[in-house]
């Protein structure tokens, strides 16, 4: 554990609270027959696509590009996930195989 017990607990509680807010807010703001503002509908429609891009970058934030191994394990594993997924279209296979390949790369190769 990196954080102390109470720090971890606070972090988890805030994440739980934040999650609950995103799920409950529409029911609190738009009870029964009130119409949802178009701007909110627009954000709800577009954000899912935007956020995944952000999360991909978030996952890769600590990759070292400027020194060895120059982000190579990540680049190779990502390429495998993309090709495998375009080929077989099997979500669990792409994730499982990609992770295994990455683990082998960082443990045995680089």
């Amino acid at each position, binding site marked *: 554990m990196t954080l102390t017990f109470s720090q971890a607990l606070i972090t988890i509680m805030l994440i739980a609270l934040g*999650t609950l807010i995103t799920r*409950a807010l*529409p*029911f609190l703001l738009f009870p029964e027959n009130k119409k949802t503002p178009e701007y909110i509908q627009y954000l709800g429609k577009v954000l899912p696509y935007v956020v995944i891009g952000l999360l991909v970058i978030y996952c890769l934030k600590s990759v070292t590009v400027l020194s060895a191994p120059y982000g190579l394990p990540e680049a190779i594993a990502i390429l495998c996930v993309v090709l495998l997924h375009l080929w077989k279209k099997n979500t*669990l296979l792409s994730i499982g195989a990609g992770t295994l390949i990455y683990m082998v790369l960082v443990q045995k190769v680089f």
Partner: protein
Amino acid sequence: MNKKIAALKAAFPHTIPILMGFLFLGIAFGILLSSKGYTLGWALLMSIFIFAGSMQFVAIDLLTQSFNPINAFFLTLLVNARHLLYGISMLSKYRNTGKKKAYLIFGLIDESFSILCSTEPPAGVDRGWFMFFVTLFNHIYWVAASAMGALLGSLFTFNSQGIEFVMTALFIVIFINQWKSQKNHIPALTGLGVSLSCLIILGPNDFIIPSMILILLVLSLFRKNIEKEVAP
């Protein structure tokens, strides 16, 4: 009582695909979490009370960095902002579900939504209880799989270096699926481009919140261009 059992029986078959997916992702989550030193109790706590797949993977990352609760909270709001859309779509379906409504809202995860928005219970089955059991089954699968993963991770010591890539792979696969389902790639490219630029300029520790603000700004400024072809 019969009403509940009928709803339970009707709900279960719809959740089998979710069971398969959650077994895999939940176990991966538990193993990854325990590899960072957080054992079974933490996995249970998170899967019971957060109950959000992608966010829990991000949470592992937050739990292994320096304590930054504000960052964690706002990142949660953004990562889970898609739930706003689910809520908006379920406003009418969740009506008249009584006390169950609070749990239905708490458990409105992607998978529950994908079943509930497209499925009506068979004739004669109570809709409220049907939706309740779909949500409950998914919740049970997720908690059980995370617990299994956490136990596996603590019972067997193996070299887990690199296992965190499971999160990267998950998001890349979702990204590809979304990319193929959409003609308009501006939203996806906005997410990638804005956050990558912020990462390069601000570094890995301070780029998330500026990225979110910039993303909202871009989405608001270019609403007319973006809104055109985005399918719901």
